[in-house]
């Protein structure tokens, strides 16, 4: 049994650590490339969304490396995601791969579901070992996300563009290679310091929130590296969505009745009164909440994503005033087109900020 899983940003680092700790034979699919997308588009039903296609592409490339057991997210009452596994299995069988697809019911069974899945994959390892492996995986995840937050800050301010991104790539590799808590902590501190030491240009950058659908926000390949491009334009990116935040709340705190999204949902109430699956409700809430302290918002959604279409229809009627740029992601998206739109958007935000400052007499 050789296990594999789809990519989602740098999620592969903690998952690899976890599987290694558990002694599970596994393979990390190659990072998303043009080839992944082409393979997936060729073999998947045409009307499906980008997250389906990219994760399918990961599975195909993993199967080529000998994987036979694949892990996919699932569950009832979310969007199409709950049915991905079923169709992906059909497609892979049609392609001649004999695979078994395991779905982790993240939306309902929470931590318990995930732990049982690990138990199954590891062939019944003792609970103590599973818990310690999960803890180590989470430690790596948290460190990476902490570094990434710093990267967002530095990217907008650095004198020579591209240094923060390069450092982050290096950090990902370094974190992946560590095998114990001590060196993990040391390396994290080391990279945080190196990031802070990057020479800065001393300007006050625009603040832009990135929000929208979970997958396309977190997987840089699917959104054409929108955060890096915004950084190059001298914009500081803020987002609430991090995988570590998600695991902290969905797996541990939500069952205890702590809901980190309640603030967003309550903010969205006057415009959207109910959960519509996916992240539609939160997207509307982000606009309401962040109108005051952000200069603009970039709203990311896969093409034909049902919850985000609802959000898109509602966003213009939100009275809180903040410019929103919606970018749809699919296999047809060209990077140049996106760049042009981003540049125009950033110009608009700059002018808006200048005119606002003039009004209140701040220079």
């Amino acid at each position, binding site marked *: 049994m050789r296990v594999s899983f789809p990519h989602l940003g740098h999620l592969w680092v903690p998952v690899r650590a976890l599987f290694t700790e558990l002694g599970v034979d596994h393979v990390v699919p190659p990072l998303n490339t043009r080839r992944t997308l082409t393979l997936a588009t060729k073999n998947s039903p045409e009307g499906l*969304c980008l997250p389906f296609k990219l994760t399918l592409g990961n599975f195909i490339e993993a199967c080529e490396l000998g994987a036979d057991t694949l892990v996919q997210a699932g569950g009832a009452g979310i969007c*199409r995601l709950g049915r991905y596994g*079923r169709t992906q299995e059909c497609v892979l069988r049609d392609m001649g791969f004999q695979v078994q697809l395991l779905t982790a019911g993240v939306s309902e069974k929470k931590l318990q579901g995930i732990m049982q899945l690990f138990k199954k994959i590891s062939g019944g390892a003792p609970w103590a070992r599973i818990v310690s492996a999960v803890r180590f995986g989470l430690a790596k995840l948290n460190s990476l996300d902490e570094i990434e937050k710093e990267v967002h800050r530095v990217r907008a301010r650095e004198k020579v563009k591209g240094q923060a991104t390069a450092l982050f790539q290096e950090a990902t590799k370094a974190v992946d290679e560590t095998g114990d808590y001590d060196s993990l902590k040391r390396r994290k501190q080391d990279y945080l310091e190196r990031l802070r030491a990057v020479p800065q240009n001393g300007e006050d950058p625009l603040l832009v929130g990135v929000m929208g659908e979970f997958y396309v926000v977190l997987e840089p390949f699917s959104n054409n590296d929108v955060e890096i491009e915004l950084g190059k334009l001298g914009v500081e990116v803020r987002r609430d969505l991090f995988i570590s935040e998600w695991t902290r709340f969905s797996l541990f705190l939500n069952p205890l009745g702590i809901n980190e999204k309640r603030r967003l949902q309550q903010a969205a109430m006057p415009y959207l*009164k109910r959960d519509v699956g996916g992240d539609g409700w939160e997207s509307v809430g982000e606009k309401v909440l962040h109108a005051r302290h952000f200069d603009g918002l970039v709203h990311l959604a896969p093409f034909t994503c049902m919850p985000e279409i609802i959000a898109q229809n509602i966003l213009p009627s939100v009275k809180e005033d903040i410019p929103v740029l919606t970018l749809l992601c699919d296999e047809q998206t060209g990077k140049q087109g996106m760049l042009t739109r981003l540049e125009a958007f950033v110009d608009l935000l700059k002018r808006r900020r200048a005119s606002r400052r003039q009004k209140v007499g701040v220079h």
Partner: protein
Amino acid sequence: MVRVGIPRGLLTYQYLPMWKTFLEALGAEVVISPPTTRQTLAEGVRRMVAETCLPVKVFCGHAVALAGQCDYLFIPSIKSVEPRVYNCSKFLGLPDMVRAVVPEAPPILEADIDVNQGRRALYRAIYSLARPLTWNPWRVREATRLAMEAHRRYVQEMVREKKTPPQALGFSPPEEEAPHRLTVAIVGHPYIVHDDFITHRLLPRLKGLGVRVLVPEMALEEEMARAMAKLDGKAYWTYEAEVVGAGAYYLDQEEVDGAIGVAAFGCGPDSLMVDLVKRYARERKRPFLTLSLDEHSGEAGLLTRLEAFLDMIERKKRKCE
């Protein structure tokens, strides 16, 4: 008298007798928007984001047509009508979307219909729908009973007399027995299949070509559920039976010569469900045509594909004989 408007789109085809009986039993006058026209669609397209699916745009157009004609719009948010089986997001957010894009609309009667929340929550939701019309819970109860009865009669009538929803609703005249050369099953959601404007009169056209048409509503619910279980296991979407169930059921029937899957471009659930039926048809070597409709689909292209498909079925039938 309070006038309540029901837009002629989406779930109206499934539930109109139920809703109408309910509202009339509470003393309201029910106004239904006129059939879809170019104007309806244009209004919907103009107001909604481009990638919104066709039936939702049409629904929005109907809501616009009703604004100014009534005191309330009746648009419940139907999340789940079976335990642990959920509806597409668009049905959930429908009242909110209409409020956002049709600001001139009257107040909307909305309630979350979700059977997973338990009986009490469901009763409370129904009561809140009736609140502007009456405060008396006993009247609401009686109206609900009458409404459920009307719904049952409506479903039975379609199965027993082989009627399409518009025929059972009295929107179009009942069918006369006509000689036919082929029998074709149509698989898809009633709000697409039975809206003659968006399908370019698909059903009458097929009849004109000498084809007997079967629609999902004519099959027994239990039979479709059984066929679906075989193909798909437990349903994931609320209206999965009318696509996967009907597809699997009709493709197994000897009398059916082929099936046509009718879906809206960009429909999330259909992208998965129609694919399942397509796979099944391929496996069983039965003719299957997928028609993807949006506001740009041209009539001539559709007709050509339809004729080619029918010719193919006929040739296959001749060969087998």
